[in-house]
């Protein structure tokens, strides 16, 4: 996998639904188009939520992975 430069980080560990998405959407609003955000979450629902959120808002989900305990997402603002 190509190495992606990350512009911003969000630690959403321990946050229950829908806060990982709410905080992501708020942070992305303040970012410039083309910038990337890495989010780390522990809410299992976030896997489908981030995919659905990216599809609906038009932002790109570059990565969605899990190590079993945490979920990592990389998004690029459209």
């Amino acid at each position, binding site marked *: 996998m190509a190495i992606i430069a990350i512009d911003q980080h969000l630690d959403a560990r321990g946050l229950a639904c*829908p806060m990982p*998405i709410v905080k992501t959407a708020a942070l992305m609003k303040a970012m410039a188009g083309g910038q990337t955000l890495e989010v780390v979450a522990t809410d299992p629902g976030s896997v489908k939520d981030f995919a659905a959120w990216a599809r609906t*808002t038009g932002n790109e989900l570059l990565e969605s992975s899990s190590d079993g305990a945490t979920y990592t997402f990389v998004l690029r603002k459209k």
Partner: protein
Amino acid sequence: MSEPLNLVLFSGTDDKLTAASVLAAGAAALGKPVNVFLQYWALDAFRRERIAVDHGLAPEAGAEGRAHVDALRAAGQASWAETFRQAKDLGEIDIEACSLSMDLLGIEEKDLDPLVDGVEGVTAFYLNAGDGQVVFI
């Protein structure tokens, strides 16, 4: 996603208000406008003096349900009021008090938490709801 989500909140218990705040915040994150219409006991829960108190749970929660809710809260889950606040910062969420319920409870606009944007009747609610879904909680 341009049609609004319209939530009619009737129940004033913390579990139902939390579920409503989650629906509102999710819609806000997706850029979907949300109209919230507060009736009866939900309106009572939005009173400035009472918004932060314990509003109990729906009867079906029982003692076991109470324990689950308390555990999630202890783990740092945001209160419904805080979730509504963050959702309002993020998106287009209009929270209106039902004027009939204001009369019923004998309260005025100044008695309501600043989360509430105003007072309206059911006709204004339907007008703003457009063709969007109406959900009653």
